[in-house]
């Protein structure tokens, strides 16, 4: 058993991680997360990451050893779905008090484990270490070992106290706990040449079930999903799988790599976000399984299924493509999914004005560049204020991001879609892609946005009053010059069309829509669409009437 610092060092040396491999030696030692900046940092801790990774195991009691904050403030807040037990959604914590901090919390932890076994009889208990007991030296490894012996039930220490690092590190530490204490400790009832593991798939909103029917149809069995809708017995016997797919990019790369080393299970990194990615993933699984001895016809059957599903999905998406033409999306998410979502959005015909690459590897960035062309705007780190400005200035028609930045978009009266872990819709596989497109359409074309962008009546009134009063206001300048300056204001920056030109066109042709303005002037009507709408609205009535 290695110490926590040694495990952390080991994770930072991950040879399977391309980003890590490309770093010089001295940087690699610093670890894979940027140094946390006090007062600027955002995001979860290592405990958070460990819990995210393991909590979807449904028949396990997840016991958090620490003061109330760690579990009391966070339990039952994730959208993973279970086909069986609800135990994973039950919050267990030792709720350490002052006495425990002074005298140590190991006794309380032992008693807590006993209470859970007496009351719930779970398949296993995962014990999560947190900062305070780590500081006072509670040895959860020893407590778990003793409890396992005493109760004849797996009690697994997850040594990932929050202050050792980021969420990402915590996910990997959770993987280490599985490797050290769980995987390979049981044998499956039977094995087939079609057994696979999915690693890093959490079944959020039940999205695993969007692709599971496809596996079922092909006769491919998910021996273990780590950890969405997972069961303890499945992960404990997952070492007998023939192949593995690493779903959530690199969050559990250590598990995939070490399972390859120990049990010779080949793995690949894939995604079920987007049509092309789903097809590639299915192909790769079939190929790996056949390589490991599955009958060759699996490949043909897979191809037939892909052809059928792709045709269906494309047919369902087709009607949306003309509606999405010219619509621009801003994508802000962790590196894990950015390229796969980028691919998905491109398939639906959306234009991407920017995507965050904060957590992406060089390889990820290359993929994004490939997908979007050279002009793709990759954002390393964008403060909310800038995001807000970008949206307010209508440089993007829509934002897709995680829950924490949603208000940046919503408060700018811009359509927004949740694509992170708290989301309530499932977007995986062919069915999920169609759902994503539907949701984008529903959001983009909601008539509400137009109303919300209109000024409040008092603001509109104030503006009108200002216009009425401005000529009377003491002005030493020539009104003709003022008017010229006003008319010279650029409306369409791309094709340099000024306000005067547009007003004249509206006036002389009696135009009433942006489309019409586009036809009569060189204005593109893309980013300047809203400005033209405003001009149309503020054009004096008599002009319009005269034109009619």
């Amino acid at each position, binding site marked *: 058993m290695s110490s926590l610092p040694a495990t952390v060092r080991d994770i930072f040396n991950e040879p399977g991680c391309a980003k890590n491999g490309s770093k010089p030696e001295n940087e690699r030692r610093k670890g894979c997360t940027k140094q*946390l900046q*006090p*007062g*600027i*940092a*955002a*995001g*979860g*801790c290592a*405990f*958070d990451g460990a819990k995210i990774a393991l909590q979807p195991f449904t028949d396990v009691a997840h*016991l958090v050893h*620490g*003061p*109330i*904050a*760690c*579990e*009391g*403030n*966070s*339990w039952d*807040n994730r959208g993973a779905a279970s086909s069986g037990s609800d135990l994973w*959604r*039950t*919050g*267990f*914590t*030792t*709720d350490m*008090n*002052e006495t425990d*901090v002074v005298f140590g919390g190991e006794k*309380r*932890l*032992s*008693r*807590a*484990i*006993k*209470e*859970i076994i007496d009351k719930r009889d779970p398949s296993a208990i995962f014990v999560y270490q947190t*900062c*305070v007991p*780590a*500081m*006072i030296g509670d040895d959860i490894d020893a407590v778990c070992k003793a409890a396992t012996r005493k109760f004849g039930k797996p009690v697994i220490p997850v040594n990932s*106290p*929050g*202050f*050792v690092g980021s969420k990402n590190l915590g996910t990997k530490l959770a993987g280490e706990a599985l490797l050290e204490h769980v995987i390979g400790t049981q044998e499956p009832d039977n094995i087939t040449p079609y057994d696979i593991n999915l690693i890093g798939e959490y079944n959020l909103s039940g999205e695993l079930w969007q692709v599971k029917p496809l596996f079922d149809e092909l006769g491919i069995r998910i021996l273990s999903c780590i950890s969405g809708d997972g069961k303890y017995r499945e992960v404990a016997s997952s070492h007998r799988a023939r192949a593995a797919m690493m779903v959530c990019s690199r969050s559990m790369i250590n598990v995939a790599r070490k399972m390859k080393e120990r049990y010779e299970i080949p793995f690949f990194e894939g995604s079920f976000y987007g049509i092309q990615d789903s097809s590639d993933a299915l192909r790769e699984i079939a190929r790996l399984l056949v390589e490991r001895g599955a009958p060759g016809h699996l490949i043909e059957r897979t191809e037939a299924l892909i052809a059928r599903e792709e045709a269906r999905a494309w047919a369902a998406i087709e009607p949306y493509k003309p509606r999405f033409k010219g619509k621009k999306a801003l994508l802000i998410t962790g590196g894990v999914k950015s390229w796969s979502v980028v691919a998905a959005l491109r398939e639906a015909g959306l234009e991407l004005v920017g995507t965050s690459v904060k957590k992406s590897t060089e390889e990820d960035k290359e993929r994004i560049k490939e997908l979007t062309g050279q002009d793709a705007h990759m954002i390393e780190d964008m403060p*909310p*204020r800038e995001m807000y400005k970008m949206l307010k200035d209508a440089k993007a028609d829509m934002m897709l991001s995680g*829950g*924490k930045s949603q*208000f*940046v978009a919503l*408060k700018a*009266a811009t359509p927004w879609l949740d694509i992170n872990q*708290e989301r309530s819709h499932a977007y995986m596989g062919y069915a999920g892609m169609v759902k994503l497109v539907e949701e984008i359409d529903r959001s983009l074309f909601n008539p509400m946005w137009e109303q919300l962008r209109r000024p409040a009546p008092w603001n509109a009134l104030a503006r009108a009053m200002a216009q009425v009063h401005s000529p009377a206001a003491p002005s030493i300048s020539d009104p003709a010059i003022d008017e010229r300056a006003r008319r010279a204001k650029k409306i369409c920056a791309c094709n340099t069309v000024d306000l005067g030109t547009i007003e004249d066109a509206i006036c002389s042709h009696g135009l009433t829509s942006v489309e019409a303005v586009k036809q009569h002037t060189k204005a593109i009507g893309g980013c300047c669409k809203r400005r033209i709408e405003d001009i149309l609205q503020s054009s004096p009535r008599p002009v319009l009437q005269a034109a009619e």
Partner: protein
Amino acid sequence: MAVVMTPKKACAVNPLKMSQPIGGAFAFMGLRGAMPLLHGAQGCTSFGLTLFVRHFKEAVPLQTTAMTEVTTVLGGYENLEQAILNIFNRAKPKIIGICSTGVTETNGDDVDAYIKLIREKHPQLARLPLVYVSTPDFKDAFQDGWQKAVTRMVEVLVEAPAVEALRDPARVNVLPGCHLTPGDIDELRAILEDFGLQPSFLPDLAGSLDGHVPDEFTPTTIGGIGVDEVAVMGRAGWTIAIGSQMRRAAEAMQAKTGVPFRVFERLCGLLPNDEFIAFLSEISGRPVPSKYRRQRGQLADAMLDTHFHIGGRRLAIGAEPDLLFDLSSMLNDMGVQVIAAVTTTDSAVLERVASEEVLIGDLEDLEELAESKGCDLLITHSHGRQAAARLKIPFYRAGFPIFDRLGAAHHKSVGYRGARDLIFAIANLVIEDREQNRKPTPDTWRKSNLPSTPYQRGFSDRTERHIA
């Protein structure tokens, strides 16, 4: 007279309680231009932030000193210093509210001394108020964090008035407990203003977390009470504290400024509001506006209409002490039996809860009690949803957090009008439950349905059948 029981379990299951530091941070969110800062690991902040965002559906300012294992060993001075400087330079706050956590308290960080050092080293911070409150995670609960933070705000931010300074009898300080929503605060503001009084709420969540669409995107709180307005609270004629938790802050105000105070432990229900309105009439010297005479009538009528459904119900309630006391008393006033009461932390009001015992416990305790004692109405925050689904009884969501229903910020329970809306909502849940789950069948009365134990539903069923 309720007996207050403490838990004997080693393992809390389905926690009702949330931690003290985020209660403290929550209080700072009611100040304008504020940035609450948790001195701890970044997860301490991240979990709290997610919780607030899910409840309010708003951008919420909350920062972290991002303590790591190494900095914890070395002490948190540098992290605190960097955090304050970074926030000062980037977010340009009007105030930073600092709450300690389990990590830094275990470590024994002397934050008061740190702040003194930081101020000496960085004179540019001279005009930036830094309010520190000690809130270890391993003690007390959310409500305690809130009241400690407000007390500290009074001690640090309120100026002691000069001896000759005159008090303005029209100005009233209101210190709301954390169980009041932005909607409650707006309601109270309207009531006080109708009496010609000028209220200053400390903290004022109605300004900051009431759901609004601002013109600018700011990293700090947007609305709320300004630091300058807090400073002059000593000139008010009265301080009104709402909820027993606010007594300490009101006392601190009186000690510092001499402003007399009155604590209203409850503001939900007929009698508490009679008392409140009479008090406002007295201190303002104005008659009660006709609006409130009508609202009193509306509440009385609502009680008449809803008592058929609410009266006799067997209530299981899990909430922080002040909310528990307020809601359970209101419902008890209408014939509800408070059968199971679970709370998070000790308080003077607990022994006056209208039930045999109050347990400082968790939602597992509440569920077990509700099940074994045959409760038929559940009130707690959103984390009670799993218990409610298993118990299959009407579930009214109250308190913090409410993350699986919308509009939590606008729920009202104060004033005649708040109480009226609350009992309508609860009665409607009861009616809906009866329609969906308790339709009579030819076999309903085949077996004797006379209560064989005192715990079976008796009174409420009989009442309902009459009007069904």
